[in-house]
Every structure is written in structure tokens, then in C-alpha cells.
């Protein structure tokens, strides 16, 4: 049996509800209806606010906070197939929440590692993200990652750029975290054109690139180590690398 849901957290909670009450035993959970398939039954799950809310209350009451956080974090890992494991995880937690600490359980271990990878990417990006100053002084940054990071990054930069507005733009997902006048919001970006940067921007990029090149000690050069620590995938928008 293949279950199909809409890819959202709420949709997945509905799925959990359906699985429990209709005793489904899926061997795959997908976000899109698979093409011609004669062998499997395909069941589409439609989001239902009431059922979803019911399961969510159950999670909040029955699970420890860090396990609820893990479940939420999974929906930022949109390139991974975590659904079957997550279903097993939630079922396990409803049976006995202490079992969620058992890292010998393959689903628990897999999801914990996936969460760790997500948070590692987020942590790297909290350092590797590069803002450019727009004409009106707003810092604007682009991000490209296999995880959806604008939520986490938005929260991080809301603290440190507390007296600034800012925009963090995930170009591939067409999502942006926008902080303006004290409010912070996630917005879908329907279309955008490359914004104008301020006059100062070139000066500080050049200063930064100068600093970046000079600070390396020639006799200790180790490009392999550098690549291990800043893998190429992160470098897309880092101006100190694009200038080389």
C-alpha cells in the first residue's frame, strides 16, 4: 500500500490519524501520486483540520519536547524520504515515549541523524550566509541548501540583527524570511529581480576579500583542509570565494 499526502506537517498528522484508525500498513509514503502502478493500492490522504489537531494535541501531551521538535524539524528536510521512519517513530512514541530514547531502534537512530545533519547545515549557514546591503540599507542574503533553512536562520538573525530589517531568500524554494518593522515573517516569493546594492557594498566586499586572502599563512597552505571545512556546495554566495 502506498499513501500519498500533501508534504506538510499538518497533512502528515492527518495521515497518522488515518493509519491508526483504518489500520493501514503502508510500505511507502509519497508526496505525489506515483505513475502507473498496478500492484499497489494507492490511498490519497486529504488534510483534515480536526484529525490533524487531535494528533497534534496527543503529541504535545504524550511526547517530550525534544521529540516534538525532532518531528517538526523533519519537515525542513524536504529532499529526504523520512516519512516511513517518522510514522514508525510516532507510533513508537505513542506506545511508550521512553522508547524514543532508544537509539538502537533503526528509525530513531536514522531520524536523529537526519536532524543532526539538518542542524549542522543550519549551523554552517549561520556562519556562511552573506548579506549584501541594499540601496535602502536592508541586509539581503541568498541561501541554497538541500534543507529548508529560512525558518531557522530567520530566528537566528532576528537576535543578532535586532535593530535591522533583513531578508533571507531561498531562491530554489521561492521562500523568504523577511524582517521589517519588528515583525518577522516567512513569505512565498512569486517573482523577483536582482535588487540594487548600496554604494558602500563594493568597498566592504573588497576589504573583506583583501582580509580573507592576506590572513592565510603561505607556509601552512592546506587547500584540501579548506575544502573539507567549507565544501563547495556552501560557496555559491560567499563573495570571498567567487572573487578568486
Amino acid at each position, binding site marked *: 500500500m502506498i499513501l500519498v499526502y500533501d508534504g506538510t506537517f499538518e497533512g502528515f498528522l492527518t495521515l497518522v490519524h488515518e493509519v491508526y484508525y483504518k489500520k493501514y500498513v503502508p510500505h511507502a509514503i509519497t508526496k505525489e501520486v506515483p505513475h502507473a502502478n498496478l500492484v499497489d493500492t494507492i490511498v490519497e490522504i486529504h488534510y483534515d483540520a480536526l484529525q490533524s489537531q487531535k494528533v497534534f494535541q496527543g503529541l504535545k501531551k504524550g511526547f517530550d519536547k525534544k521529540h516534538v521538535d525532532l518531528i517538526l524539524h523533519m519537515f525542513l528536510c524536504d529532499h529526504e524520504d523520512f516519512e516511513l521512519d517518522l510514522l514508525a517513530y510516532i507510533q513508537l512514541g505513542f506506545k511508550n515515549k521512553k522508547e524514543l530514547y532508544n537509539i538502537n531502534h533503526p528509525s530513531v537512530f536514522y531520524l536523529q541523524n537526519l536532524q543532526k545533519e539538518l542542524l549542522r547545515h543550519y549551523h554552517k549557514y549561520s556562519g556562511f550566509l*552573506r548579506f549584501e546591503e541594499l540601496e535602502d540599507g536592508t*541586509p539581503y542574503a541568498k541561501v541554497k541548501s538541500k534543507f529548508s533553512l529560512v525558518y531557522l536562520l530567520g530566528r537566528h538573525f532576528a537576535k543578532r540583527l*535586532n535593530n*535591522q530589517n533583513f531578508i533571507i531568500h531561498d531562491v530554489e524554494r521561492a521562500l523568504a524570511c523577511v524582517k521589517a518593522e519588528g515583525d518577522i515573517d516567512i513569505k512565498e516569493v512569486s517573482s523577483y529581480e536582482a535588487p540594487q546594492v548600496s554604494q558602500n557594498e563594493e568597498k566592504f566586499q573588497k*576589504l573583506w576579500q583583501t582580509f*580573507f586572502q592576506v*590572513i592565510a*599563512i603561505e607556509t601552512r597552505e592546506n587547500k584540501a583542509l579548506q575544502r573539507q*571545512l567549507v565544501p563547495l556546495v556552501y560557496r555559491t554566495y560567499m563573495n*570571498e570565494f567567487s572573487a578568486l
Partner: protein
Amino acid sequence: MKKDIYAKMQILSDSAKYDVSCSSSGSENNYKTGELGATHNSGICHTFSADGRCISLLKVLLTNYCIYDCAYCINRASNDIPRAAFSPRELADITINFYKRNYIEGLFLSSGIIESENRTTEMMLRVLEILRFEYKFNGYIHVKLIPGSDAVLIDKVVRLASRVSSNIELPSDASLKLLAPNKTKEKVLQPLKLARDLSLERTEKPIGMSTQLIVGATPESDFDILKLSSVLYDKALLKRVYYSAYIPVNDDKNLPALVNKPPLLREHRLYQADWLLRFYGFGYDELLSQERPHLDEALDPKTIWAMQNLHLFPVEINTASKEELIRIPGIGIRGAHKILSARRFQRLTFEDLSKLKISLKRARYFITCHREFQKEVPLYEETLRRALTTPQKGYMPNLFDVSGITGEL
């Protein structure tokens, strides 16, 4: 001639690059509504330079003019190099603009001695004041204290900085006398002791402090160096000691002749040993002794320690305490935590450890898993050393490699 800002940046970061410290960790999150900047407890690396070192702070000198003439230092007075100075305002502006673009976590401020120690500290203080009061900047600021400055000035700096440091550079007084005639160990440590006492008067937790030692310029052994670090940690004077493999930047009759490569492996082993002191509960005298004063370059210090203490091994994974687990070669703090939480649910076997992604490359020789143990290598120092230093199966033969023994592809 007046230098433009890019030339200044070039000169003053070039002069600062031999300072190792670049950590931005260990401060609590402290953002304030309506202000700029916050520190992050774990520290954040913002990029890595071509030598593979983390860049988290804007590391520059305020000026590289200097009245001192230390033999190992690139900025010594007798060196003929381009000199420059930032004005406090210039440097503060660059810092804020870098910070807003998320290039850096904060500022690492150091300086050559211009005119006098006090004059230099006053200039540095000015940068701090602009950043903290005018720009309301709460990010990380590391200041290198100037030995010989007045207590009043040092107190002001300590109140505004996130961390302060003073570099001992050379691990013994004799070497200091030889290479840095204007410095003594007492003089270098004076501002740190002062900073500790001043900040302890105000809070229970003293301001974070660090120092740096040059490795390989003078004849001190690893034993001497680790002993010194250990004493400094025990006195709660320092949070970190940095080790810097000696790189010749000056010709001086008292310095070792030019070497081709800095002793990077020795530096690496010292850091490993330093970690064992700070996080694994080892004493320096467990790792080294007068008779064995140097760390082994072929194997890491924990493995060496284990081979000297084979009577403590093998350790049973399912019953050992956390303190025993972290002393097993190849198992770190994270690995120990995984084992502790997994064994609450079931008895662990070698296979379970692999599933938990715990590296057994070194550990397997030193553990038993519910009476199961590896049988190929007997538990003697010579056999273990051979097993640990010869490359293992991990080697992937090239498609066209011909086996030397069988002649097969």
C-alpha cells in the same frame, strides 16, 4: 604618504595573521532588543582561509608600529616592513559593516606598541567604546592586553571585552630572555592575573582568557609545554592555550635556522594532548614524563597512554563508567554518550557499535563487548603498535593495480 584603506587592511591583517586564537565560543547568548549583535555559545566559524584555519573574527592590528624588538616577531622594530595604523573610528566602522554582512562574529583586536604601553591601550579602548556605546554592539570582542599597561586601563578594557589574552609565546624564562629581551613571563602574565582579579571582584565567572605558545623555536620539550599549560588551567587563569608551530619570519642568530615546513604534526599532537587535559580528565604527568618528554608523532597521545597502561584494558563496553569509556582510544565524548544511552536498552555487541556509527578502528583492540573481543592482535605494545600504524583494509585498489603476490588484477 597616506595609505588608502585597502592598503591598511592588507598591512595590518598581514601583521596579525600569526595570532592563532580565533574562537568566538564560550559566551552566553546576550542579544538585546533594539541593539546589534549577539554572541553564540558554541562559537561560529564564518569562513576558512586557504591554510584551513577558521575565520570567525576580524583579526587585525590597530597599528604595526612597535617600539619592541622581539626576535620571533614579524613586527619587530628593526624590521624594514610597511607600517600603517587604523584610526579607532575606521576600525570600528569596518567591524560593524563586516558584522552586518555576517562576515564575522566580532573583532580580534591587537596592536604593536606605539609610543608607550598606556598610549596603545588607550587607543584600543577607544575602539571598544565606539563599538559598545555608540553602535550598541553586543558581539564578540577579543582584546590582546598590552603587558605593562596601567591597572585602571586594563580594568576598563576587561569590562568591555568578551575575552582577553596575553601571549606568553615562549615556554620558559630562559628562552624569553634570549628572544624577547623586553619581556619576562611575569610581565606577560601580569595583565592576565590583573584581569582575572578585577573581573572576579564583579562576578563569579572570570572573563575568558587565553594565551599562545610558539612550538619549535626553542628547545623546550612537549613535557615542559604541557606542564605549563596544565598549571595555567589549574590556576583558573586561562580557558585556552594555543600552540603555534614555529614559522621563521626573521633571521636572527638566536633562532633556529630556516626549516622547510613548520612542525605541524607536533602542533597537532599538542592540541590533542591539550584536549585530553581539558575535557578527558587526564593529567599532564599521565601523558608524558621526564624520561619520555615528547609526544609520539606516529600515534595520538591517548593511544600511547593506553599502550603504556595495558593493565587497565580491555574495557567492557557494557559496564564501564563514563570516565573509563572516554579513556578508550578512538572513543570520544560523543561516542561515550551514545554507548551510555544505547546500553540502557540492550546489551551491546560489536555489531551494535558499528550500527551506532562508533569508529572501531582503534577502539576494537581495547574493548570487550559482552565477553566478545577481537582475537587477531594480542594485547602487547609491539603488536598493537604494528596493527595501528600499518594501513588497514580501507585501501581501495586502483582498477589497474596488480596484486604483488598473486599477479591478479
